[in-house]
């Protein structure tokens, strides 16, 4: 029976192309998302600075919530320096280096800062071949500098230089210039750990040749029963850069957020392509019924054949998925959301998972499409194969209506939860509603065409009359085309407007938050020097100044009624923040942000205590002293600086906001300090503000839209190509090719008309709810050209995808076309 199916395949080239494209794209997208997710779980940063450390001991750099994926901690979790001594005695250990890193910069003679990372002298032993010119630093006011930095700052061994080290400016004597792959300032080990409060980032251990494993085991024993991490081999990469490793842990969540919409679209396109392909075979399947195949055999045949056709495209697509994932990684790196060094994990799992998933979809879709034909009594099967069933199934219609209703219920979520997570449901609701349309579409099309038929004037032209009759007679086929086009409208509108509306809402929030005329940063010194705040506050013309920094906290949020710990961005503020920021405080007072206190967005009881993890993993309890309204732009939580201090990697303020009536003068006075960079306004939009998912969503939109439009065009072409026999028949009866082209254009107009109207209606409800929730207005924010553009694209695709195969079908003489078809 499969052979028969393959023999008929020749006649359905367009349908097979549609199926192959749907499969290829689907497998590529699912595999790509899988690779991204897996990389988030398993990929490792390359080992660079620690290449010569055989065993590395560090504090845990991720938080493991119960029954969930571990969350990477972006702020360095340090260890007490005393541990180094304990490990020195372990057998086969040749060196134990307690390594620290802190922000540092040397100032040139003109005071221009040259950025370099600060370390202890022993860290030079981690470099491959440290060429040292001079003596190691031993006194607190001595340092060594790498050759590149020395050249940039114009210093030599023996010079005296000013440096900003961990936020403190002081004068040092340069004792040595060393060669090092990256810019570094090296201090006496005892001096270095003072900058990090006598805690080290990690302990690097060198072992006797070939003894690495033994040393690792011995170190674990020596450390005893605590949660410190002992790493060897590739595991050391993550220890080097916890920020980068933490950035990676947002990949699974990102993949998860893409997966929902993507899977829905893929299911839709794959099922659509298969249903066209199987509709073209209905007659063959019916004949098989007539010669004794059971309904189950028919469905099995349809599914088996679909699987066979799909397999090559799926395998190729899965391969392309790895390339897609790499392109995507490149884009994330370009946007600054992923460290450039992070490689993708390439394993067969994502491909295998994608293949299994899509094969399931194929089986289900093929069996579903063949359902009606397979269930008919054998005798009716043959006659029914010539036309569609007269009445669309009631169950199907009700199921469709129910799905549309359910979709609109989901669409209410952004109204109650004004977060980017809540906003995600808008596109899902739109897509679900369109799938519902696919189910109740035939009934609707039949109704619309009956109304049209009744309204047609008696002397209407034959093409128009035939077009209406066809719409009515082939409601199922027409509904398929309508649903597909409506999907393009709904998906583009809901998905795009969700992003633009969310961006606007966030921008408005951020815009309304910043009250400052000027802001000051110090990127060269890794954060603002500790004396900067005093200096700025006392600068003439400054009315108020307050530090504003961002960190990440693990905050217990409620997701669909369940408490879940989520990594979320948080502001670090002092009581002075009330003067420079307008957080739309609803209750309490930002002036109370001292000690272990927080302010939170939305509803919370003042004075209640919340427990959460700071960015380095430390669990703290803090009192809620204020609630505010700008959660969308600012984040869920604001942490007092007193609480966060010592739990960030740099330990420095990132930005100081300034209120002043005379920005010009203030700017001029601050210009004398070359370390400080002064900017207009609050400059909050970068840093806080738009979350990475939004940018990514826009790229995903592009990819999915391309896939969707290709799928739509393919499906329309295939279903038009299958009308060759029908068109030839009309020509035999006396229709001219021109009349038939007109008829097809009228049908295309009816299809477009219904698709645009239903698409707009289905998209409207979720978008209005979203806009009300986020912007407090019924209309969304977004480009005005979007709607006309979408409608234009849909119309162009529909007409082109119907017109071209129609020309093709009308080319051979009708006698031939009829013979070679049906």
């Amino acid at each position, binding site marked *: 029976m499969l052979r028969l199916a393959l023999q008929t395949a020749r006649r359905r080239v367009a349908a097979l192309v549609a199926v192959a494209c749907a499969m290829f794209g689907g497998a590529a997208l699912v595999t790509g998302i899988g690779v991204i997710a897996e990389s988030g779980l398993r990929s490792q940063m390359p080992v660079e600075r620690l290449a010569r450390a055989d065993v590395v001991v560090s504090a845990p750099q991720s938080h493991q919530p119960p029954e969930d994926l571990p969350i990477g901690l972006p702020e360095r979790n340090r260890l007490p320096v005393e541990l180094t001594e304990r490990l020195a005695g372990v057998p086969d250990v040749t060196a134990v280096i307690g390594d620290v890193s802190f922000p540092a910069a040397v100032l040139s003679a003109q005071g221009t800062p040259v950025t370099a990372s600060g370390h202890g002298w022993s860290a030079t032993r981690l470099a491959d071949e440290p060429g040292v010119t001079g003596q190691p630093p031993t006194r607190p006011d001595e340092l060594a500098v790498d050759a590149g930095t020395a050249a940039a700052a114009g210093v030599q061994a023996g010079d005296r230089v000013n440096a900003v080290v961990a936020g403190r400016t002081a004068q040092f004597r340069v004792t040595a210039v060393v060669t090092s792959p990256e810019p570094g300032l090296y201090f006496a080990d005892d001096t270095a750990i003072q900058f990090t409060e006598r805690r080290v980032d990690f302990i690097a251990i060198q072992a006797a040749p070939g003894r690495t494993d033994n040393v690792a085991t011995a170190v674990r024993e020596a450390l005893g029963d605590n949660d410190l991490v002992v790493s060897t081999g590739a595991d050391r990469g993550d220890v080097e850069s916890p920020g980068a490793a933490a950035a990676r842990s947002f990949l699974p969540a990102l993949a998860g957020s893409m997966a929902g919409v993507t899977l829905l679209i893929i299911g839709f396109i794959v099922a659509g392509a298969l249903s066209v392909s199987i509709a073209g075979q209905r007659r063959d399947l019916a004949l098989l019924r007539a010669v004794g195949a059971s309904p189950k055999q028919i469905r099995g045949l349809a599914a088996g054949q679909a699987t066979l056709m799909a397999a090559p495209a799926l395998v190729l697509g899965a391969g392309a998925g790895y390339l897609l994932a790499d392109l995507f990684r490149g884009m994330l790196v370009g946007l600054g959301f992923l460290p450039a060094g992070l490689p993708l994990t390439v394993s067969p799992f994502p491909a295998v998972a994608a293949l299994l998933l899509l094969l399931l979809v194929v089986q289900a879709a093929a069996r579903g499409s063949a359902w009606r034909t397979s269930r008919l009594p054998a005798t009716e099967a043959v*006659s*029914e194969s010539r*036309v569609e069933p007269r009445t669309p199934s009631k169950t199907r219609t009700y199921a469709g209506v129910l799905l549309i209703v359910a979709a609109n219920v989901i669409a209410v979520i952004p109204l109650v939860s004004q977060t980017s997570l809540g906003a995600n449901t808008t596109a899902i609701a739109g897509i679900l509603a369109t799938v519902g349309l696919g189910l109740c579409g035939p009934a609707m099309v039949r109704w619309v065409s009956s109304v049209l038929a009744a309204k047609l004037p008696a002397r209407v032209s034959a093409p128009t009359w035939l077009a209406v009759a066809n719409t009515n007679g082939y409601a199922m086929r027409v509904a398929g085309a309508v649903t597909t086009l409506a999907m393009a409208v709904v998906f583009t509108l809901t998905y795009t407007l969700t992003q633009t509306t969310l961006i606007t809402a966030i921008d408005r929030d951020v815009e309304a938050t910043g009250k400052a005329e000027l802001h000051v940063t110090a990127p060269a010194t890794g954060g603002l020097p500790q004396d900067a705040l005093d200096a700025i506050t006392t600068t003439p013309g400054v009315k108020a100044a307050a530090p504003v920094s961002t960190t990440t906290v693990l905050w217990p949020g409620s997701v669909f009624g369940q408490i879940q710990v989520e990594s979320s961005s948080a502001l670090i503020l002092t009581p002075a923040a009330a003067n420079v920021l307008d957080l739309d405080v609803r209750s309490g007072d930002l002036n109370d942000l001292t000690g272990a206190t927080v302010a939170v967005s939305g509803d919370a009881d003042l004075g209640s205590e919340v427990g959460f993890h700071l960015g380095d993993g430390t669990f703290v309890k803090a009192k809620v002293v204020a609630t505010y309204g700008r959660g969308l732009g600012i984040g869920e939580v604001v942490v007092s600086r007193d609480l966060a201090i010592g739990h960030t990697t740099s330990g420095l303020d990132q930005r100081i906001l300034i209120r002043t009536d005379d920005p010009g003068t203030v700017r001029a006075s601050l210009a004398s300090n070359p370390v400080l960079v002064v900017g207009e306004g609050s400059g909050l939009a970068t840093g806080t503000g738009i979350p990475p998912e939004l940018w990514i969503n826009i790229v995903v939109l592009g990819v999915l839209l391309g896939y969707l439009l290709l799928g739509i065009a393919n499906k329309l072409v295939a279903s038009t190509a299958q009308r060759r026999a029908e068109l030839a028949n009309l020509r035999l009866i006396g229709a001219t090719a021109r009349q038939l082209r007109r008829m097809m254009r009228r049908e295309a107009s009816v299809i477009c008309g219904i698709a645009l109207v239903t698409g707009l209606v289905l998209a409207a409800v979720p978008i209005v709810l979203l806009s009300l929730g986020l912007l407090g207005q019924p209309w969304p924010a977004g480009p005005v050209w979007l709607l006309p553009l979408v409608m234009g694209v849909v119309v162009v695709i529909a007409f082109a995808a119907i017109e071209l195969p129609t020309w093709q079908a009308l080319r051979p003489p009708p006698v031939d076309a009829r013979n070679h078809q049906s």
Partner: protein
Amino acid sequence: MTRPHHALRTGPFETVPTAAVTLAEVSKIYPGGVRALDGVSLTVDRGRFVAVMGPSGSGKSTLMHCASGLDTPTSGKVFIDGTEISSLTENRRTELRRRNVGFVFQSYNLVPSLTIADNITLPLRLAGAAADQEWMRTLAGRVGLTDRLSHRPAELSGGQQQRAAIARALIARPAVLFADEPTGALDLRTGRNVLDLLRELVNELGQTVVMVTHDPAAAAHADLVLIMADGHIVDTLTGASPTTLAHRIATVEAE
């Protein structure tokens, strides 16, 4: 044998001198090189009932297609109602065909999405003419489908569908009606009924008919029987009995 067309030959068409269909040296070579018609010449006078017989593959359908303007010959000329058609564009040819030619196919070729009434009047609609409801009802009554007019083709039996197709072929009052094995898809009894109906209509309306059939009994009613083999008309018989025809066909098939 009786000549049922006698009454018709004295009908109104008699005064028009042109033949209904004329083929002059018509050849048809299909892509791939099959010479399905090889220099066939033929004149069908108005009011004539012509039967075409011959073994399968002998070119009967090709002859019908070329003579009706459904297809164009590779060489030679075809005149329908006095108009030479091979020089016409596809559109003009279709229009001429719509006006002057009715065609009954073996496979009925009704439009599944249209009711029987709409199927019957479709050629008029396509010609932009008003659907002549009275004529349609007359024809429908004549073919016995009055109570089936609002049904769809799928709800009718094969014989009923073919009768609807005959009514459709006659709706435009064509100069000539072609029928290519109109009973080929029907059982013997139903097929006979359809043939009887066709013959009665022809008698009543004075219709020119060219029909391909394998049934010697049906062919025996024709004014003229053409026997085809290998793209040639190998014999032209008038007034042959069914037995003679059956014998003649058997010998052609044996060659």
